[in-house]
């Protein structure tokens, strides 16, 4: 099943040369894609377009097989496809880890009990058991990264867009992350500068260059 498709998308930030030109991209359930590209090639921009955080100047975005134009159209898509931001500081806005992880599940309308189960389960899987009451801004960089992954996974998405997930993780944490991802049923698109990591974890690696994806 097709989760996301971008068709002939053009995008430029205000007053800057275009980043993406006629870009086509799709992610289906069961796919695991890696995306490589030089700095400033528009990798994060691509993800933001997929989830409606930015709107393309030309082209179309399809989510779950339906054309998405307005904020409303993207809401259903965001339940199915999570997004791990490049900077965990952007993602963790609550004071405690448990609250942050529970935020998504509560937004989905799951009750408190179920949300807390998901908090415990997800943190446990990521090797963060006992982190529930930790204060988010006192976590180390690597811990923040894993907790922000937990906030995404706790919503039980079908796919995730991962923006440099292994960045800033030590070997042990990086291995945990890889194991959790590989053991899951998730599909993903993953941006990284680490080609070896992409080749281990993805079925295909695409290169974003000159505003387009090349296989």
């Amino acid at each position, binding site marked *: 099943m097709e989760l996301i498709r971008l068709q002939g998308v053009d995008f430029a930030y205000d007053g800057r040369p275009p980043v993406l030109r006629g870009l086509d991209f799709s992610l289906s359930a069961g796919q695991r894609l890696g995306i490589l590209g030089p700095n400033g090639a528009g990798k994060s921009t691509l993800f933001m377009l997929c989830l409606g955080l930015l709107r393309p100047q030309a082209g179309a975005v399809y989510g779950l097989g339906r054309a998405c134009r307005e904020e409303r159209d993207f809401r259903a898509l965001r339940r199915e496809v999570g997004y791990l931001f490049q900077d965990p500081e952007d993602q963790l806005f609550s004071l405690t880890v*448990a609250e942050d992880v529970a*935020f998504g599940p509560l*937004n989905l309308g799951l009750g408190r009990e179920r949300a807390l189960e998901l908090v415990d389960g997800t943190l446990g899987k990521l090797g963060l058991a006992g982190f529930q009451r930790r204060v*988010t801004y006192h976590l180390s960089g690597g811990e923040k990264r894993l907790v922000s992954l937990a906030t995404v996974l706790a919503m039980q998405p079908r796919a995730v867009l991962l923006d440099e997930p292994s960045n800033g993780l030590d070997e042990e944490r990086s291995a945990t992350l890889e194991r959790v991802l590989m053991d899951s049923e998730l599909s993903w698109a993953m941006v990284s500068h680490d080609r070896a990591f992409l080749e281990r974890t993805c079925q295909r690696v695409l290169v974003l260059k000159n505003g387009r994806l090349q296989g």
Partner: protein
Amino acid sequence: MARPSPPAPRQATTHPLDHAPAPGLAARLDPRGKVVVALAYSLLLALCPGPLAPALGLGFSLGLAVWSGLGWRVFWRRALAVNAFVAFLWLFLPWRLGLGPAGGQITLSYNPQGLALAGLITLKANAIFLAVVALLGSSQINDIFHALAHLRLPAKLVTLFVLFYRYLHVMRREYLRLRQAMAVRCFTPGSNLHTYRSLAQLIGVLVLRSLDRSERVYQAMLCRGFAGTFWLLDHFHWRRRDTVFCSLGGAAILSLGLVQWGGTLWN
């Protein structure tokens, strides 16, 4: 809007969220009770016209400070900050400006009432400050925020507090990073135009970065299905010690009130 998530059944206290780390009795009390007592106590002392009740209050507050088990270090630095402001009152209040008999010339005369007023303010400020730090400082900051939300303070206000507190740390770190970046390029602040210009730039960059960050934080929240509701996870359990604490606090406040206004009521 902040809305409490459905309350947990009472027996579900085994969850780690329901247990706060508890060094002393003050820290284990329900923060809702402490917030209410601290507020009522501060309000009463602030309204007292005479020195007797505030002086007694200072005694109470000192007792609270010792009982809170926070250690004198916590109080010492804050006391210095509070009393630095109060010192200005001692400097300015005891003097009265007036016009001389001939007019035109300005006289400065000593005014003992001003001195009494400065003394009263010092008493009140320190009594309130000690009590508030002893009561609120012994809870974790997020417990205080939750208590405010549970006390039905407007949701937007609580959310604002929480986000402010959360991102204050991020901004401080960003500020320090920028200062370090300036320092490694041999920036030494002095009182010259170059310093003012550089510091103005630093502040400008901080503001811009914060704006960008707020945008990204909002986007990240949208990605997790944010639709305007902030959820409260922590729930407090009112215990007998909280009732005892609030009764004692209420009695203390009442007796201070009686000391201050009892005479007028009696007549």
